[in-house]
């Protein structure tokens, strides 16, 4: 049964990040919320999907469709809310009158529900769900996986004939066939089937591993399982053959080396047996339970080889090591109480990554409990509980960041309100209006002046009073010019004077005209600018942003909700932490107990050997062993 669990865990890793939903497509063209719900659901963002689902269900009220409810249940499964999801799924799927669900959809929903229970180790419930599926209705893409799960569950129930049917239905080129044959082999080992048959099935499983994602690792696993089986049934040679094939750098190395050593010992090959055990002792941490067993196995073997003094040294060494291991385990337990054990692990989890399909990041490079933690994580029950704790941790940081976000919203509102009030209380419109009025007045009077001054193109308008009188005099004198024929020199002088005066006047006229048009242009620009300012100020006044309004209450209400939720979550978090801690503590105690047993055996053996050996030999051999 233990082996079944191992396979279940291995297989469940393939389910990660896979969506759980029956194939359903968006019906209406531009239903943005539903479209986004589908996108988040199928891409594994279950939290967003569930949130959008709640909006749609609220919007539709009692008319909410079954499909929406199934999608809700699916997202719940994805977030690890299996109890709620289970209720919903069952209620929906059992109702045969539900016309919204096609047979294919129903079959697929049952399949995913079964798969979920299978992954969780609730195999009886999983089998019930599997029995609801008609093979004809299942999506061809999922057929092999369906047969694999069905076969495994039937084997678990002891219904070998039914299991065989499912196994035969799996395509040989599917990765599931390798797992199915492995499960079959395991079931054979538990059913007293002839070893030749078991061997054949193990070999077949090995052949089929090439279609899996990690064939090397699976081959190692099959070899280890076969080796352990043959060793347990007293077939050392067959065991050795399989164990020899396990890679030396895989995750099954330590177990394979340990069993390999025992298998060789059983075959009286004591010298050869020492080699894998020394390898195991040298290359792996003493916290590894296989190494702990090796520590006592080595002197046991040395004693069998009649190297009693060396065996005594090895027993003493093992005893010291057990002391150290015991202390290390105690330190782990202490770190568990102070929070140094779990908290660093939780602190490094990816924010917003939570739910049943999001794996826990176990890479703690400098943490003293890293090896131990990885070891204890192989237990699926602990994995589930730790995932729950991680989810609570992520939710807690989400709530905290939500509260911070709400404070930022407060600030944003205040800024917007200030801006609004500033615009409303602004005197700019009045000031600009007045300024514009003045400018316009100035412009008008200037225009009048200019028209007066420049109306006369000969520049008379710009002449001074004296010059004007002179010009008038010239006009008066014009009639007298004719009479001055005899005095041409006088006439010429007079005309020269008139010419000089007019020339000077025209010069001044052009310069002044240039200057005036320049000033006029500047004034015109100012007026236009002021007009634009006035327009902008009026527009701003009209459309001043009131977007801060109405959010006050919402923000406050939401903040209160967040705070109370955080308080509740903290309580649950502490309880869950205690639960996880309890599991670890129990595990540590069991490990310590085992270490104590080993130590007792080592000490007893050492005492016995002490009596059997002389002091001189002991000193020499002890130093040699330690070296």
């Amino acid at each position, binding site marked *: 049964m233990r082996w079944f669990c191992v396979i279940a865990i291995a297989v469940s890793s393939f389910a990660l990040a896979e969506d759980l939903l029956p194939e359903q497509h*968006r019906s209406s063209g531009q239903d943005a919320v539903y*479209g986004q719900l589908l996108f988040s659901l199928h891409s594994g963002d279950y939290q967003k999907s569930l949130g959008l689902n709640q909006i749609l269900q609220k919007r539709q009220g009692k008319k909410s469709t079954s499909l929406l409810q199934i999608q809700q249940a699916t997202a719940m499964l994805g977030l690890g809310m299996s109890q709620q999801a289970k209720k919903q799924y069952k209620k929906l799927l059992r109702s045969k009158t539900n016309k919204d669900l096609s047979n294919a959809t129903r079959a697929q929903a049952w399949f995913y529900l079964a798969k979920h229970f299978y992954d969780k180790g609730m195999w009886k419930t999983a089998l019930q769900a599997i029995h609801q599926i008609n093979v004809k209705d299942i999506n061809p893409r999922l057929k092999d996986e369906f047969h694999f799960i069905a076969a495994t569950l039937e084997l678990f129930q002891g219904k070998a004939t039914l299991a065989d049917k499912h196994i035969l239905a799996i395509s040989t080129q599917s990765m599931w066939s390798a797992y199915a044959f492995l499960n079959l082999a395991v079931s054979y080992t538990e059913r007293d089937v002839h070893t030749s048959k078991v061997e054949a099935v193990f070999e077949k499983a090995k052949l089929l591993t090439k279609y899996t994602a990690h064939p090397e690792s699976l081959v190692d696993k099959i070899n280890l399982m076969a080796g352990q089986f043959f060793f347990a049934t007293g077939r050392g040679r067959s065991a050795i053959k399989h164990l020899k094939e396990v890679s030396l750098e895989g995750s099954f190395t330590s177990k394979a080396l340990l069993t390999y050593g025992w298998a060789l010992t059983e075959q009286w090959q004591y010298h050869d047996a020492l080699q894998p055990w020394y390898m195991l002792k040298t290359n792996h941490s003493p916290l590894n339970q296989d190494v702990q067993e090796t520590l006592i196995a080595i002197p046991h073997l040395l004693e069998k080889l009649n190297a009693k003094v060396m065996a005594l040294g090895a027993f003493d060494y093992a005893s010291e090591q057990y002391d150290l291991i015991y202390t290390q385990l105690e330190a782990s337990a202490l770190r568990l109480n102070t929070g140094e054990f779990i908290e660093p692990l939780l602190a490094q989890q990816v924010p917003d990554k939570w739910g049943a399909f999001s794996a826990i990041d176990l890479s703690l490079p400098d943490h003293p409990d890293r090896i131990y933690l990885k070891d204890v994580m192989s237990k699926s029950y602990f994995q589930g509980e730790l995932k729950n704790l991680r989810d609570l941790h992520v939710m807690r940081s989400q709530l905290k960041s939500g509260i911070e976000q709400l404070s930022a919203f407060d600030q944003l509102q205040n800024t917007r309100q200030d801006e609004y009030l500033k615009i409303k209380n602004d005197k700019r419109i009045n000031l600009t209006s007045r300024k514009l009025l003045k400018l316009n007045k100035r412009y008008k009077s200037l225009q009048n002046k200019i028209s007066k001054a420049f109306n006369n193109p000969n520049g008379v308008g710009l002449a001074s009073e004296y010059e004007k009188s002179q010009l008038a005099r010239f006009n008066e004198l014009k009639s007298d010019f004719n009479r001055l024929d005899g005095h041409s020199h006088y006439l010429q002088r007079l005309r020269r004077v008139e010419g000089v005066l007019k020339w000077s006047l025209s010069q001044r006229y052009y310069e002044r005209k240039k200057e005036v048009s320049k000033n006029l242009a500047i004034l015109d620009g100012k007026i236009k600018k002021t007009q634009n300012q006035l327009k902008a100020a009026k527009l701003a006044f009209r459309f001043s942003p009131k977007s801060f309004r109405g959010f006050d209450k919402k923000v406050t209400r939401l903040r209160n909700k967040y705070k109370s939720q955080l308080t509740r979550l903290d309580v649950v978090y502490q309880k869950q932490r205690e639960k996880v801690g309890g599991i670890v503590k129990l595990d540590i105690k069991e490990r310590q107990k085992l270490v104590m047993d080993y130590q007792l055996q080592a000490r007893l053996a050492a005492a016995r050997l002490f009596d059997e050996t002389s002091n001189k030999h002991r000193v020499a051999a002890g130093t040699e062993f330690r070296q």
Partner: protein
Amino acid sequence: MKAIRTSITVMLCLLSLLAPKITLAAAQADLDASIETLKSEVVQLNQELFELEEQLLYPATTEFAVFVSMEAVDDFAVASIKLTLDTEDITSYLYTAAQVEALRRGGIQKIFIGNLKPGLHKLSAQILGKDSDGRSLKRTVVADFGKARASKYLEIKISNNEKQNRPDFAIVEWK
């Protein structure tokens, strides 16, 4: 009578032995249930916060959003989309296999949300992807659009051109 008394005593003893286990199991089930309730409530709260954020940060008068959809296109897998609004690059997105599948199955992705002032604008989307034979495909679609004082939604639509057996790309305005 004595026999009844004895059996009751035995029953009580058994119950007292079982009681801590039952209480422990019930407490654990309670804890699991409260974790699930918390999860559900937190999801709801976060959704409320998300809605509030959208309402507050992107008011209806200036809101501008771009969506991506891909309908019945089996021969094309989008790899990335880069959006340029007027002359500014506003976002770029890389797709995972699961997200491509989600689009294929009717999902709509809100690729961008922001604020935009009224007036005439130009959105350009550069789409990179691969066809079923693994050949890279790069297309740029451009749309000129006007923005009034109301929300504006555009959709980058990837659809299947059955006649030419290739994907079609377009920017569609939501009315």
